[in-house]
């Protein structure tokens, strides 16, 4: 190597390490020089620079993302005009700076290579004018002939979209608009309608709840209200000293859900048990604690629910019901009962009864600002629609951002019926099962390229603004639909921004506002959310009569043969994210299965059916059936099996991942997601599940600590790991900062939001199912699950593991090329350009926090997916070890900003991506050198401990033991 630089004093003489590193460097140079020419690179500046864009500095814009009936308020980070990271909008009163992992992963949705790029006519690319003319002609003919036209959409919670549809309906009186969400439960809406006379979804104020009684309700996981629920739940679980009150969570559920995994008292029972158990609890509340029943319901209606008999019949402990009733009585208005969306109407009635008795309405359950949703079609109505399509009722059918060819119960029947419609039009983002069957395919813009507004509550409007011009020749759905209305003779503004602004000026901007409309509008666009003065709705009242008839139905229920529970998948939701590699590879938060779904079976049922993990079974209900691999899941209730929706899609990424469970969704009027009398039989085939974690036993080590309150009081007095172990290394001397992290396992629910945030921030590649099965997943932060206690109903311990940035890091001394070194700010640095890939560091890391890039995962990422890369982080090549850096790019940026302003770094100013995304605020980052920083205080907390401290690694991450609040403890 030539070294013309005389200024580098360098080490005297060549050490072995230096020699090896020189060898490595020359080899690398030899590899790169072949294609290196000095003229390879150009700089292309703007000719006219847009205001506020400084190359190299990120801009943040607030927007709104709709999923189902939830409009997530988000804050999108953009670099040089391209969105690269999504967080929650801190101005949003409901989401308060947090968002769901699925919304975060929408960055990949924007740059999805599978997106539709131009209109298609009969399967081949066509110009917009031609494609639009084809639709307009058909609509005009339908209007003249007074033939009906079907418009099928997803849930419409956007006033702008509602307006566009209304405009089209005025121009085309035969338009029949049907909205549906395949993953949203129809029973939940029907129950609310019959119990309260309104289908408005309540807002759960989990932060106020001292006692939660959840019946098959995955409130912190797959329910769509999870993000604020996790934040609220965490607040009640983190006492700062022994004796402080804590909330208590009771979960009666068949499958081990994310919420059940955090329960203080978890009762594994069949889904059918939920209603009788809840009614029995209501009876105890009335008889033992003197709570009155609501009008229309008499004590005789609860007569059949003798607690001891009900508990025995459904395999629950009667003492649990007494304890729950006692706690609900004590909590009063601060209690909350929720029935899972998938459960039949009786269970919803029973939970509503509990809430009405303790007076939770208006306190832990709020409906005074709830939006009345428009009608949503149930699976039964979709079956009726299929029959109408088959009868050739419609002159044309338009599918707008919905995929019925995949997501109806009888997809084959639907697709056959579709052929009877002369013109099928699809307004979609990417190629899917429906678009392939449509005559005209019109590509629509992604929400990050669109204008819109959404009703989060009656007093809360979320605004959606485009972050980037459409990447391809796409148009917003509203613009297309309004274009048709215009063709049909209506006078409408089709430009999405202009029509949105015009409507806001007309309907939203309050008369007599001092600010001009332009100022008002700009402020609203900036905040992404607008609060309005709207009178509260009258509190809803429970109809006792409806509860009485539900009780009658629940009283006759008896445990039968196998039951099936179906729920939207935590990652795929209804299947719309199946093409998103980040989400496919994100392990399921409880089972750690990636790239597919499964049938969760209890150990007892697996024994009697002769099943083991990976056996493919055929699950049949009536005429329909699906084939799924089995997962023998600890905590699964005997007599009940579980499967998630959203898999079995077509497409480059999704193909071969799991199977669609939609055929098992009932479309005959019964509860769609809860099936009884199902048949499970072994097919003899095997499909091993891909899992990121295969060992779920702690083997007696206390890497994840779970303490009951008594244990907390005892251990807080005598901390076990207070003193530092002796070390032979030099006492580290820190520079201006010593970065550290504290993770509160009591707050953490294992939602995996940190994992997606990290993947997006740190350019972490997706490796695919084959490589995950070989243990080569690349996530820098992971949430681990351990089962403690009996496998029939274990306690679940959630651990969060990332590089511990050890002061005496085992990875550092073993690196032959000094690619793993320690910084004076306490970071354990991995220098990719030095790394030669021997993997000694990985072998020596006791935390398994290091990852190795076995194949060139990153260079396979092509345009446009590469636009999602964070330009502040290296895109690591093959053969390099990598790991969490505490988001050093954010640290450097924060330090630089502080320095530029001539002030010290403020505590909390620098947040790694995981900490920023954590809805539970379980991750706190800061400077351990500052004794007053939050992280320093938490590091000294009496719940604090270091994982594998006994190895003398001296980690910079302090964990805080998870606290439980079992029912034996009287205090809540």
């Amino acid at each position, binding site marked *: *190597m*030539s*070294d*013309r*630089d005389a*200024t*580098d*004093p*360098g080490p005297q003489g060549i050490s072995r390490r230096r020699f090896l590193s*020189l*060898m490595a460097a*020359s080899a690398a*140079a*030899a590899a*790169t*020089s072949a294609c*290196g*020419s*000095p*003229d390879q*690179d*150009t*700089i*292309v*500046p*703007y*000719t*006219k*620079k847009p205001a506020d864009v*400084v*190359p*190299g*500095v990120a801009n943040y814009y607030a927007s709104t993302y709709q999923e189902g009936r939830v409009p997530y308020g988000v804050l999108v980070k953009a670099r040089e005009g391209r969105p690269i990271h999504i967080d929650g909008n801190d101005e949003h009163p409901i989401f308060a700076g947090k968002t769901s992992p699925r919304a975060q992963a929408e960055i990949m949705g924007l740059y999805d290579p599978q997106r539709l790029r131009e209109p298609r006519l009969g399967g081949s690319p066509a110009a917009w004018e031609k494609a639009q003319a084809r639709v307009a002609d058909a609509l005009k003919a339908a209007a003249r002939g007074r033939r009906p036209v079907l418009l099928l959409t997803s849930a419409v919670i956007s006033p702008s979209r509602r307006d566009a549809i209304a405009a089209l309906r005025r121009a085309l009186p035969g338009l029949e608009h049907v909205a549906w969400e395949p993953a949203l439960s129809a029973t939940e809406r029907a129950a609310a309608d019959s119990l309260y006379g309104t289908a408005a979804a309540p807002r759960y104020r989990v932060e106020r709840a001292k006692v939660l009684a959840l019946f098959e309700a995955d409130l912190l996981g797959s329910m769509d209200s999870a993000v604020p629920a996790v934040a609220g739940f965490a607040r009640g679980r983190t006492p700062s000293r022994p004796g402080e009150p804590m909330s208590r969570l009771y979960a009666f559920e068949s499958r081990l859900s994310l919420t059940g995994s955090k329960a203080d008292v978890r009762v594994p029972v069949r889904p059918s048990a939920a209603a009788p158990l809840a009614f029995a609890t209501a009876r105890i509340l009335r008889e033992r604690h003197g709570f009155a029943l609501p009008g229309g319901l008499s004590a005789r209606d609860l007569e059949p629910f003798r607690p001891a008999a009900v508990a025995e019949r459904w395999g629950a402990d009667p003492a649990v019901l007494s304890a729950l009733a006692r706690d609900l009585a004590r909590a009063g208005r601060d209690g909350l009962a929720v029935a899972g969306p998938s459960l039949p109407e009786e269970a919803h009635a029973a939970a509503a009864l509990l809430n009405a008795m303790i007076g939770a309405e208006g306190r832990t359950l709020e409906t005074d600002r709830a939006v009345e949703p428009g009608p949503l079609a149930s699976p039964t109505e979709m079956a009726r629609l299929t029959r109408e399509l088959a009868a050739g009722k419609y002159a044309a059918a338009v599918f707008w951002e919905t995929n019925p060819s995949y997501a109806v119960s009888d997809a084959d029947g639907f697709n056959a019926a579709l052929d009877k419609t002369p013109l099928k039009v699809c307004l979609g983002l990417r190629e899917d099962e429906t678009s392939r069957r449509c005559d005209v395919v019109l590509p629509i813009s992604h929400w990050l390229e669109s204008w819109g507004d959404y009703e989060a509550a009656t007093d809360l409007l979320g605004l959606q603004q485009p972050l980037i011009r459409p990447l391809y020749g796409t148009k917003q759905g509203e613009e297309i639909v309004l274009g048709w209305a215009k063709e049909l003779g209506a006078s409408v503004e089709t430009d999405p921004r202009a029509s949105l602004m015009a409507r806001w000026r007309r309907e939203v901007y309050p008369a007599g506002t001092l600010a001009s409309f332009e100022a008002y509008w700009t402020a609203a666009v900036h905040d992404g959310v607008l609060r309005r003065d709207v009178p509260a709705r009258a509190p809803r009242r429970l109809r006792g009569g409806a509860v009485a008839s539900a009780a009658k139905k629940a009283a006759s229920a008896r445990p039968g043969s196998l039951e099936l529970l179906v729920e939207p998948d935590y990652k795929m939701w209804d299947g719309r994210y199946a093409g998103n590699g980040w989400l496919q590879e994100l392990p399921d938060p409880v089972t750690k299965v990636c790239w597919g779904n499964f049938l969760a079976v209890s150990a007892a049922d697996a024994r009697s059916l002769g099943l083991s993990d990976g056996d493919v079974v055929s699950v049949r209900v009536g005429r329909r059936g699906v084939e799924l691999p089995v997962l023998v899941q600890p905590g699964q209730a005997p007599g009940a099996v579980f499967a998630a929706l959203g898999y079995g899609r077509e497409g480059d990424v999704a193909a071969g991942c799991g199977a669609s469970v939609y055929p098992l969704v009932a479309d005959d009027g019964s509860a769609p997601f809860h099936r009884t009398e199902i048949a499970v039989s072994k097919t003899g085939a095997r499909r091993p599940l891909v899992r990121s974690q295969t060992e779920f036993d702690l083997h007696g080590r206390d890497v994840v600590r779970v303490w009951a309150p008594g244990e907390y009081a005892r251990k807080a007095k005598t901390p076990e790991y207070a003193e530092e172990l002796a070390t032979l290394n030099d006492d580290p001397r820190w*520079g201006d900062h010593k970065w550290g992290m504290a993770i509160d396992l009591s707050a953490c629910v294992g939602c995996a939001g940190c994992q997606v945030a990290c993947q997006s921030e740190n350019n972490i590649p997706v490796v695919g199912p084959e490589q995950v099965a070989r243990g080569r997943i690349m996530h820098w932060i992971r949430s681990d699950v351990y089962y403690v206690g009996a496998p029939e109903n274990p306690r679940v311990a959630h651990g969060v593991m990332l590089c511990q940035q050890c002061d005496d890091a085992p990875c550092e001394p073993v690196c032959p090329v000094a690619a793993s*070194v320690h*910084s*004076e*700010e306490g*970071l354990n*640095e991995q*220098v*990719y*350009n*030095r790394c030669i890939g021997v993997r000694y560091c990985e072998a020596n890391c006791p935390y398994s926090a290091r990852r190795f890039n076995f194949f060139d995962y990153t260079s396979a990422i092509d345009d446009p997916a590469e636009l999602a890369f964070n330009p*502040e*982080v*290296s*895109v690591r090549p093959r053969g390099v070890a990598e790991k969490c*850096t505490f988001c*050093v*790019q954010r640290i*450097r940026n924060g330090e*630089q900003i502080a*320095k*530029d302003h001539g002030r010290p770094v403020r505590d909390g100013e620098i947040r790694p991506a995981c900490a920023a995304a954590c809805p539970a605020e379980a991750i706190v980052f800061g400077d351990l050198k500052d004794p007053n920083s939050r992280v320093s205080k938490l590091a000294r907390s009496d719940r604090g401990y270091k994982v594998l401290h006994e190895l003398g690694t001296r980690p910079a991450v302090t964990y805080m033991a998870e606290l439980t609040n079992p029912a034996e403890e009287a205090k809540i």
Partner: protein
Amino acid sequence: MDPRDRFWRVTAPLGALAVLLTILVVGWSVEPARYQLGYAPEQPIPFSHRVHAGVNRIPCEYCHTNADRSRDATVPPLQTCMNCHQFMKLPDKALQEYIDKAVADRVKSDEPIAWKRVYHMPSYVFFDHRAHVNARVQCQSCHGPVETLDVQTRLMNMRMGRCLACHRDPTPYLPPGSPIKKGPTDCYACHR
């Protein structure tokens, strides 16, 4: 000769020499292009730093506006040229015509210029201009006497040793009385 003797006297020294030679020859011949001093590519417009920064004494940051607030000092948008060139007319008619064509017309038609990159950083180096500019390191300390160059030329040694030399003893490059006595030498200061 005893076979063992032969190994120690002939094979081993020759082998060692061959290995050493290979390392030296390969190392010298495949030096990355980014290390070459004096690299001065022909640019799409023969912009002269001598005329602008030298003769007319326009401060560097007038054009490279982001040097103090971004990692990238940034090449200015063409519009910046028009700040002056839309008002002033050069006595040299041919030159004025050229500027009208090369700059003014491009701004009007929104046609960007693809400048040849002179200073090239590998992708794993995250250099931050604002840290240096805000510490009042002169641009010339790294980029050399740019104000004397008609053709922008690479005058800086782009090796890490050069970075470290200054980070270990920055005093000669800082204004007198600067409180900064040392720059960060952690790997993560630049690599991440």
